[in-house]
């Protein structure tokens, strides 16, 4: 039905992919930024990958130039990967060098395949979102600039995925990245009575995961500072609940997450640095910490050992020591504190 649901696959897949759909045998990475998928039919599909600005946000000028490249080299097909990299699929292998030169000419790095730094995922951050504790795209840009060379060549033991979340909702998937930057609030929401009066107060009360919010007659709410975990949930139903404070907001650094089945399988990242300040425009504290962690991993990890698996092998004590990060018992996540956490939450009882 027009305008509803997914567009028809047939119209949007490159012909070579459509012809061999579900019948792919294997793939190789002949060089950084180039993928070669081989089908049962014997056909080989070449893909060229280029890094994009955060959230693949480009000017219309650049977008048109990229579209021109897609027309010229990929039969008018292009795609964005899950991490917002640009891919031109079904490129003639004889023209790959030419395409790479054209992409570089547009200022786009060609790479991000294999054991490289991958494109940085980020949510929209405080540009558009009322929950954000940080400018996630700017942090992504600062980190990508810091590790730019590692997008182009395979220097690492394994792939490195860094993701930036503006808040603990993790729209930026920081918690499942090798290194995640998570925007955090450290203070209570401000309650604006006149705004709250216009909101659905039962929703504000019920959405709080720790039951920290009570109605405050006649038409407002109050937040219990002992129970509030600064999680942004109450800001969703009501714009009178204002979370976000330039003085106390910042970011935390988490490491060891991954979604893939390799090594020890999927895992959430764990907190290793509880707080770094927001220092626009380049967030030097964050880029320094990321560089520190990356270099220690590069030195110590085995081939194909993602950060989480490397830490699992050497142990968290060794990780903190090697990375030169202070450790505290508040950073432990052995699920020992889980029953206490669960009883503080209001979502279920036992």
């Amino acid at each position, binding site marked *: 039905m027009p305008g509803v649901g997914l567009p028809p696959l047939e119209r949007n897949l490159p012909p070579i992919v459509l012809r061999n759909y579900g019948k792919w045998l294997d793939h190789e990475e002949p060089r950084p930024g180039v993928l070669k998928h081989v089908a049962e039919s014997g056909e080989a599909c070449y893909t060229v990958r280029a890094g994009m600005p955060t959230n693949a946000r480009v000017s219309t000028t650049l977008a048109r130039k990229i579209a021109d490249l897609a027309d010229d080299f990929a039969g008018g097909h292009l795609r964005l990967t899950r991490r917002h990299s640009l891919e031109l699929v079904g490129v003639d292998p004889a023209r790959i060098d030419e395409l790479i030169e054209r992409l570089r000419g547009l200022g786009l790095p060609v790479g991000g395949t294999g054991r490289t730094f991958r494109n940085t995922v980020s949510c929209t951050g405080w540009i558009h979102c009322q*929950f954000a504790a940080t400018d996630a795209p700017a942090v992504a840009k600062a980190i990508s600039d810091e590790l730019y060379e590692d997008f182009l060549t395979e220097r690492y033991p394994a792939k490195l995925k860094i993701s930036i979340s503006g808040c603990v*909702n993790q729209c930026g998937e920081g918690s499942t990245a090798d290194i995640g930057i998570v925007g955090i609030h450290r203070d209570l929401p401000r309650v604006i009575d006149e705004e709250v009066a*216009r*909101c*659905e*107060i*039962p*929703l504000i009360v019920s959405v709080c995961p720790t039951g920290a919010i009570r109605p405050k007659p006649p038409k407002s709410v109050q937040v219990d500072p002992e129970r509030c975990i600064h999680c942004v949930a109450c800001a*969703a*139903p*009501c714009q009178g609940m204002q979370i976000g404070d330039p003085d106390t907001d910042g970011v935390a650094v988490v490491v060891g997450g991954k979604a893939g089945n390799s090594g020890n399988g999927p895992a959430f990242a764990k907190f290793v640095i509880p707080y770094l300040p927001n220092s626009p425009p380049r967030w030097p504290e964050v880029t320094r910490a990321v560089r520190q962690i990356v270099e220690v991993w590069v030195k110590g990890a085995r081939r194909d050992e993602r950060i989480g698996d490397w830490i699992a092998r050497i142990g968290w004590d060794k990780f903190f020591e090697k990375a030169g990060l202070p450790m505290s018992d508040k950073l432990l996540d052995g699920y020992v504190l889980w029953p206490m956490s669960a009883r503080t939450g209001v979502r279920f009882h036992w």
Partner: protein
Amino acid sequence: MATVELEGKTMELDEDGFLQNPDLWSETVAQYFADQEGLGQLTDEHWKVVKMIRGYYLQFGVAPMIRKVVKDTGFDLKYIYQLFPSGPAKGACKVAGLPKPTGCV
């Protein structure tokens, strides 16, 4: 933030045209919103939906779930869309003088 003069009172509307102060609602205000939505003169069936929604909001402080609206009015969702083409949230809740329903995230 727009304002409108009705019944000698100045009322503030949010950027989507919803009444900012639900206490200022009256049937005249409801008809004003209906005119804005292009509904014409409100019929008894419109009023049934509007009164159910407003009554629920005054009692519970939240907008009713759509299933509740369907059950209490006896109108199915398709018919409610016929009465209020903008839908139960944007159309009927606005006419009933509720604050803009929240959604997303």
